[in-house]
């Protein structure tokens, strides 16, 4: 595995954290009640911290003189490698919960593996993130159960969100050349293992919450090549506006 491969790997993971952090930040001041508003924003803050650490390391490994800020503010849409699931909008509270719940399951497994690698920077980032993500799992899992077993309307809304977002789950266990190189050195588990882990957990959580796992088999793909849904462009427009209008602006 070459440094550039590891850089790209960190960039993919960092991008997913960054874009989710942005989505979570959009919920600030719009939570259903004050305590949950703060909780949702806190999830975003944790993810932003993980994104920053990963993108700083990605930039360093790349060795082209770019900084984490350059990566965030100066790449075009096709240069982002976050999962499409991460960029899906906060259509309603259920959509936000389902998006974060599935991504959190994925992240927990990713960080668990990374926490044990011989690269000290990466294992350090992962060891810290494991604890944060364990809380995310707990909080989001609570909402899956609560909304699933709540009222008829909450049940219907969370099931709708699961059905609508299901087509984006396939990307989480898809593999390309880079993934194989990363797996070879033990920095990631195989796609099959990830799929088995996700499906077993999702299925048991959803069943417990009286919800059902969608049966549709179509899964979309493309984010590992920089292909995205219509939503990423809008996120970047907002996130990158200042740097685009006033390049290298400083406080």
């Amino acid at each position, binding site marked *: 595995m070459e440094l550039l491969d590891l850089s790209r790997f960190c960039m993919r993971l960092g991008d997913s954290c960054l874009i989710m952090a942005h989505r979570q930040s959009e919920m600030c001041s719009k939570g259903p*009640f*004050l*305590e*949950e508003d*703060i*909780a949702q924003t*806190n999830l975003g803050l944790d993810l932003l911290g993980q994104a920053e650490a990963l993108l700083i390391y990605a930039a360093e490994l790349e060795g082209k003189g770019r900084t984490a800020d350059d990566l965030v503010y100066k790449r075009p849409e096709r240069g982002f490698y976050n999962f499409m699931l991460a960029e899906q909008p906060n259509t309603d509270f259920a959509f936000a919960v389902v998006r974060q719940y599935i991504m959190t399951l994925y992240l927990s497994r990713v960080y668990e593996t990374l926490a044990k690698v011989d690269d000290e920077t990466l294992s350090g980032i992962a060891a810290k993130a494991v604890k944060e993500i364990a*809380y995310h799992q*707990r*909080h989001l899992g*609570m909402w899956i159960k*609560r909304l699933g077993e709540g009222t008829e309307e909450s049940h219907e809304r969370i099931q709708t969100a699961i059905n609508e977002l299901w087509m984006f789950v396939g990307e989480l266990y898809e593999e390309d050349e880079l993934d194989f190189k990363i797996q070879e050195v033990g920095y990631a588990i195989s796609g099959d293992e990830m799929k088995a882990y996700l499906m077993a957990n999702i299925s048991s959580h959803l069943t417990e919450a009286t919800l059902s796992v969608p049966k549709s088999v179509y899964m979309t793909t493309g984010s590992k090549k920089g292909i995205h849904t219509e939503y990423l462009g809008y996120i970047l427009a907002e996130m990158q506006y200042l740097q685009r209008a006033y390049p290298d602006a400083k406080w």
Partner: protein
Amino acid sequence: MLKNIQINNEMSESKDTQGELWEVFLQTKKGLPFKHAGSVHAYDKEMAIQNARDLYTRRGEGRGMWVVPANAIVAVDPSDDSSFFDPADDKVYRHPTFYELPEGIKNM
């Protein structure tokens, strides 16, 4: 003379949809007493402890936490203040302040 904290009773009668009020107590270090930190809204125990964590422990404030339903706390009615507390005013000898504490005693 004794009554449950008024605020919670008012909360549950109103059309508030934020859930019941819970009081949060934090312990800064193992072995130290728990101190009142503030309150949160939540619908049940699980949500109460999570909301309290998000509001009160993200800056390293504690290593232990209790969350208690506000209506389970029995408080002294402010109008009974004098009969409860005033008789102790002139009895300073009830405090062990006339002893010298050995050096090295912490948290007294």
